């Protein structure tokens, strides 16, 4: 409890760190913060064009599907990547002041959340322009979805941070793992591919697939997100949190020795 209180007490600090990370990323860039939405947009256009050309998929519908997948994926990938780097980049603070270690991966999650929020703005605009029919009051489900994303992404960031400070191979290795997960999750390939016999069992337990469904059901199809997907994601999150808390309790004070 004391630990949580400290995290809250130092909120100004880690919120500032997240914002300064954002400022640093786009410092002196002409398009600046717009890149957050432009990057997934351009990637969407490229993938949609290729798949439209090769598989004759409907461009508009499919591009909205991909755009939504990419921005949600970027959040998860960001939690792992920025989480992994979070203790290393905070070396200056860690060596200077004793603060709860969890604030550094949490800062990374906050950063990813802000990026997601802005990318979502781009996504909403894109959908409004190309397929206004998608809009409905179901879009309000984005709020519970955000909570779900953070609940799932935060322990990922904490775990990555701790593993990476102890084993620097992690950063190299996790990129490959993420690449594999990206291919076997409904990020850009059509959803129905993942219900085929070969992938069906995996999809049933894949938290990324469940998260994508929770995002797309209200946004793209105007339906209420299904409970099974919520259940699956929270079950995963519970396991991840248990692991993250145990790792943090064990390593909190030792992190300083790994620089």
């Amino acid at each position, binding site marked *: 409890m004391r630990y949580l209180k400290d995290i809250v007490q130092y909120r100004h600090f880690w919120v500032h760190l997240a914002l300064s990370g954002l400022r*640093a990323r786009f*410092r002196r860039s002409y398009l600046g913060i717009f890149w957050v939405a432009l990057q997934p947009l351009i990637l969407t256009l490229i993938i949609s064009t290729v798949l439209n050309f090769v598989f004759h998929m409907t461009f508009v519908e499919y591009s909205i599907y991909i755009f939504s997948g990419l921005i949600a994926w970027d959040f998860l990938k960001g939690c792992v990547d920025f989480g992994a780097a979070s203790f290393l980049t905070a*070396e*200056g*603070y860690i060596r200077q*002041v004793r603060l709860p270690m969890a604030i550094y991966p949490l800062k990374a999650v906050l950063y990813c959340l802000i990026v997601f929020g802005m990318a979502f703005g781009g996504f909403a605009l894109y959908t409004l322009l190309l397929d206004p029919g998608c809009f409905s009051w179901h879009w309000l489900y984005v709020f519970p979805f955000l909570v779900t994303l953070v609940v799932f992404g935060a322990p990922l960031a904490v775990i990555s941070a701790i593993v990476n400070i102890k084993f620097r191979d992690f950063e190299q290795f996790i990129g490959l793992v993420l690449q594999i997960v990206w291919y076997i999750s409904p990020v850009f390939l059509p959803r129905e591919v993942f219900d085929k016999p070969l992938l069906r069992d995996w999809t049933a337990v894949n938290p990324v697939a469940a998260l994508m469904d929770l995002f797309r059901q209200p946004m793209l199809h105007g339906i209420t997100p299904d409970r099974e997907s919520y259940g699956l994601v929270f079950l995963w999150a519970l396991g991840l949190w248990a692991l993250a808390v145990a790792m943090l309790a064990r390593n909190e004070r030792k992190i300083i020795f790994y620089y």
Partner: protein
Amino acid sequence: MTIETIEHVLPPIVENRSNDGCFVQLDNIVLRYPIGPFVKGSIKTGLFSLFGHTPLEARHKRPYVTALDGVSFSIKRGERVGIIGRNGAGKSTTLLTIAGIYPIAGGKLTVQGKIQALFNIGLGFEPDATGRENIIYRGLSMGCAPAEIRERAEEIIAFADIGDFIDMPLRTYSSGMYVRLAFSISTYLEGDILLIDEVFNAGDAAFQKKAVARIRNLVTTAGLVVMVTHDMSIVNTACTRALWIDRGRLHMDGPAQEVAAAYLKETAG
């Protein structure tokens, strides 16, 4: 298994607090620095060991270095303590232990009060952010409320005296400007306990004079000051007491001039 009996208090956000009760107490502190993470090596060193090369890990008898070995002292409010000793004696480690950065392997550490640390000029600053922004980051990392930092910002800027550079990114600073700003931030954002590790060297003579004077006056704002330095003139002029640390043990503790003189005598001979 190591027993950790640390009673470290994270600096609370309290405005208008008084530093009456601040103190630092070390009872038989043992600090072991694990060397595992550095000597574990990579697959490359593993392969070399096949050809008879002794890996670093095997060359060390114990998996740790004892950096502090039964150090005890206490510092009361109003003291300005200089820590002196040879390179690698454990001076900076002592300071970092007080700050709660290192976990201790034995003994008891009690720190009462809000800590303000100035360990390494380059650390804890965002090179891409401006001087003004860095004042805010530093303050926030100490647990100061944003309003409190804004209140003090002008004083900090005035003391640092680096002109228009305050609105430029830190990357553009000379090392002297860095010291001026860092020193200024650390001494003006009120902490009860100020810990300083050799930061006087980089500023020019005029600033050094100003800095030493500031340290001397600090007891009025900071409750107590602990600094590590190799410069005996600073110990003589700015400190009331000195601790001489040698090979992780407290070698001598007494009035600043006496300890400094004894240290100089031994190192000269």
